[in-house]
């Protein structure tokens, strides 16, 4: 019973432990996302499908999936689809769509930052698209930096493919460059560079992008020597691999490098190598600057004119315009008129002012947006924390509940155990009690059966005293001898469980004769035994017959109006002694039937039944009232099994 309860409790504890350990693991993204969608997205991500080639098909399928997951419980699925869409649109260079889906997906994954991969894609998409849009460089930098941070976190190498990491970190280097965080930019660019260093052959576009970003970062950070090392490396690589897609950027970088190290002729060389078709205005003013610095006024003049034309025809960005006037002012000072120089300078000055104003306001706006983003992040963090707290609270409550339940169970178990224990203890007590009772009873029996009644002893002594007083000295001595023998026998037998029948009969004779003397021989007695009892080794418990003989004398034959008579008959039968104690008194209804008598009867019965158990022979105790059959007195019939 106890063991079963214990097992139950253990099982419950185990169950609980299992629940506890499995609960947090269940919260993987896979479990939250529709299985089909998960597999599909996973296959896109791991590029088992050629993304660029199949982009329209993939976009179509993703768009078809999206409306199926509109419920709150589908938020993870939806966010994942949106994230994938953003990334796909980025691959297809559809900046606006990429931005839109990136922004849609981001909130969910910002709330669940454990899902690092989709969060990374969101950040990457947003960082790159915003940077390409040149709209909000600080926001783009914020996202790109976050994406890069995920790529640089430990364990990212297993989480994300190398290309993705290089792309994101390079992007972060670029955005930091735009923001003027040159140190940061160098750091990112270097990281990207190191990642891709050994992949110049198999990932040329990433290698090229990384090395260029690094060169730009180094140049801007005013480390032209380091930049030259990488430029040389890039040059070598381009020559070896014939990878020409980024050749133009390489030339631009070279130009920038030589410009910075003031080797204007080399700069011009590379500027002339550069294909400026995408940015003719930049070509014009770059060449203007270089020709000016190389003191070739004609060539400079030609570029100046070209630039002026381009300004008139297009609407170049303010900062470029400013740079143009900056270069033009120098030209005017060196080769032009004083008036032209003044004009150019005032133009530059106002543009500079405007640009700086613009920059300042943009900076302010960007900083604000950055701040807002930070705030948003903080809010998200707060929300997340609140969520975590709530979860913890729930977990705590669950724990409390579990503890309470377990506590209850434990209490119940303890109570049951205690009840069982106490019951057992009680039973044991009962057993001991009964054993104690039995011991007590046995002791009582022992005393009763072996001890001469104090009354008898003192009365006997009083009787002897009277004999002495009456000068019946011989009688007194005989009396004393008998008494001594009886007392000795009593003491000796008190230590024995079984005594020879002969001794018991002798003691009975002594006892009866002493009683007869005490009552002034007011009754006769006779003891009949079987032949040869003196030599018989038969043994019986001591003092079994004595109480009945005593009873026959004290309550039977003493103080009778006629002469009393006590007869004791002991016969040996198969395994038993058959004893009769017969008196001619007033029968059982007569006076002097006390509690002591009934107690002695009870004790005798117990002793007899013990004897039956021991020997297997039936015992018997029967009290017969002779007056009921028209005779006198009482007959006690005792059947004592002997050993």
């Amino acid at each position: 019973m106890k063991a079963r309860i214990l097992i139950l409790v253990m099982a419950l504890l185990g169950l609980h432990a299992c629940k506890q350990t499995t609960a947090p693991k269940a919260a993987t993204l896979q479990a939250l996302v529709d299985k089909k969608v998960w597999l599909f997205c996973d296959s896109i991500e791991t590029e088992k499908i050629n993304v660029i080639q199949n982009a329209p098909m993939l976009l179509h399928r993703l768009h078809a999936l999206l409306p199926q997951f509109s419920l709150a419980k589908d938020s993870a699925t939806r966010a994942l689809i949106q994230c994938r869409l953003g990334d796909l649109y980025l691959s297809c260079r559809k900046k606006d769509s990429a931005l839109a889906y990136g922004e849609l997906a981001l909130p969910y994954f910002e709330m669940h930052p454990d899902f690092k991969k989709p969060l990374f894609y969101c950040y990457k998409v947003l960082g790159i698209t915003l940077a390409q849009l040149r709209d909000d460089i600080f926001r783009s930098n914020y996202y790109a930096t976050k994406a890069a941070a995920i790529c640089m976190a430990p364990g990212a190498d297993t989480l994300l493919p190398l290309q993705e990491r290089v792309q994101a970190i390079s992007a972060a280097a670029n955005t930091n460059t735009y923001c003027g965080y040159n140190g940061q930019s160098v750091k990112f660019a270097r990281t990207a560079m190191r990642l891709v260093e050994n992949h110049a052959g198999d990932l040329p576009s990433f290698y090229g992008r990384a090395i260029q970003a690094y060169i730009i970062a180094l140049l801007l950070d005013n480390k032209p020597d380091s930049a030259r090392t990488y430029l040389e490396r890039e040059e070598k690589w381009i020559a070896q691999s014939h990878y020409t897609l980024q050749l133009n950027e390489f030339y631009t970088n070279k130009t920038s490098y030589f410009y910075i190290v003031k080797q204007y002729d080399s700069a011009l060389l590379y500027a002339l190598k550069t294909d400026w078709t995408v940015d003719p205005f930049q070509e014009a003013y770059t060449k203007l600057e270089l020709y000016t610095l190389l003191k070739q006024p004609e060539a400079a003049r030609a570029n100046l004119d070209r630039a002026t034309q381009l300004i008139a025809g297009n609407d170049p960005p303010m900062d470029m315009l400013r740079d143009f006037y900056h270069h033009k002012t120098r030209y005017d000072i060196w080769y032009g008129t004083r008036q032209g120089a003044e004009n150019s300078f005032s133009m530059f000055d106002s543009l500079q002012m405007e640009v700086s104003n613009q920059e300042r306001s943009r900076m302010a706006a960007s900083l604000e947006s950055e701040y807002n983003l930070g705030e948003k992040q903080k809010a998200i963090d707060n929300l997340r924390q609140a969520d975590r707290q709530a979860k913890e609270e729930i977990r705590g409550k669950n724990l409390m509940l579990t503890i309470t339940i377990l506590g209850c169970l434990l209490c119940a178990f303890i109570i049951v155990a205690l009840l069982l224990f106490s019951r057992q203890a009680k039973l044991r007590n009962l057993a001991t009690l009964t054993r104690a009772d039995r011991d007590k009873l046995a002791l009582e029996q022992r005393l009763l059966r072996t001890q001469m009644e104090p009354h008898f002893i003192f009365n006997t002594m009083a009787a002897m005293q009277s004999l002495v007083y009456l000068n019946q000295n011989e009688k007194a001595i005989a009396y004393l001898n008998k008494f001594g023998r009886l007392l000795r026998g009593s003491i000796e037998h008190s230590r024995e469980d079984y005594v020879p029948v002969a001794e018991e009969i002798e003691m009975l004779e002594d006892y009866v004769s002493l009683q007869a003397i005490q009552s002034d021989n007011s009754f006769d007695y006779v003891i009949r035994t079987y032949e040869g009892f003196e030599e018989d080794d038969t043994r019986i418990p001591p003092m079994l017959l004595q109480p009945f003989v005593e009873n026959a004398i004290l309550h039977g034959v003493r103080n009778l109006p006629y002469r009393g008579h006590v007869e004791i008959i002991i016969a040996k039968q198969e395994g038993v002694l058959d004893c009769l104690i017969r008196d001619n008194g007033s029968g059982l209804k007569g006076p002097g039937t006390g509690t002591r008598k009934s107690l002695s009867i009870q004790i005798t019965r117990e002793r007899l039944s013990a004897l039956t158990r021991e020997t297997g022979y039936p015992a018997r105790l029967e009290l017969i009232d002779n007056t009921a059959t028209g005779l006198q007195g009482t007959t006690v019939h005792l059947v004592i099994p002997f050993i």
Partner: protein
Amino acid sequence: MEILIVDDNIAIQHTLTFLISKLPGCTVAGRCGSIAEASTFLGSTSVDLVLLDIELQDGTGFELLDALPDINFKVIFITAFDQHAIKAIKTGALDYLLKPVDEEEFRAAITRAGRQARQSAEQLSIAREHMSPTPVSNRIVLREYNVIRVLSYNDILYCYSHNGYTNFFLTDNRKITVSRSIKEYEQMLPPSVFIRVHQSYIININYIDFYNREGFIVLKNSLEVPVSVRKREEVVKTITNL
């Protein structure tokens, strides 16, 4: 002095007869072996003293006294071995003899009986009360020289033993000195009311004010009673069970 012997043991009858015969001025008025016999005898014959066995064939000695309308004789009880009866007799401040009878004791008892006034009915009834297997009495008899005092347990504040005498200090500030040992009173007084706290002191637990752990009890009359070291545990137990 006319003396009646009531004892169912013939030998005792012989002995007592012999001992009485040796005392001047004392004669055996009769010998009875049962209550019925004695009752008949006393109904017709006037005696000065009855030597009364407590346990007789047809009842106890007290039953004989109950059966008589008027007890105009002195009683000395006789018993072989009956602790309970002896206690009851003592509580009633009655006299008794033990079997086998010691001649010296016998003579002293007879002499005492001759000298003292007859026991009161109250003494007998108190002894009778204490004879019942579960005594309900709350009284005890004290014999101070020739004065018999019946006290309720509530009257007794404490007992103090001195030179073999026992001094009873009562709630009304009286003092009664009895020529019995405090040990005898310890046996007589019920442990539910009295406790022997010291070799020389028995106190009534109802009058305990408090127990000082330094080893004395303060009674409600402010008297300090010392508690012997051996008794402290018992005393504390008794007090906490009050």
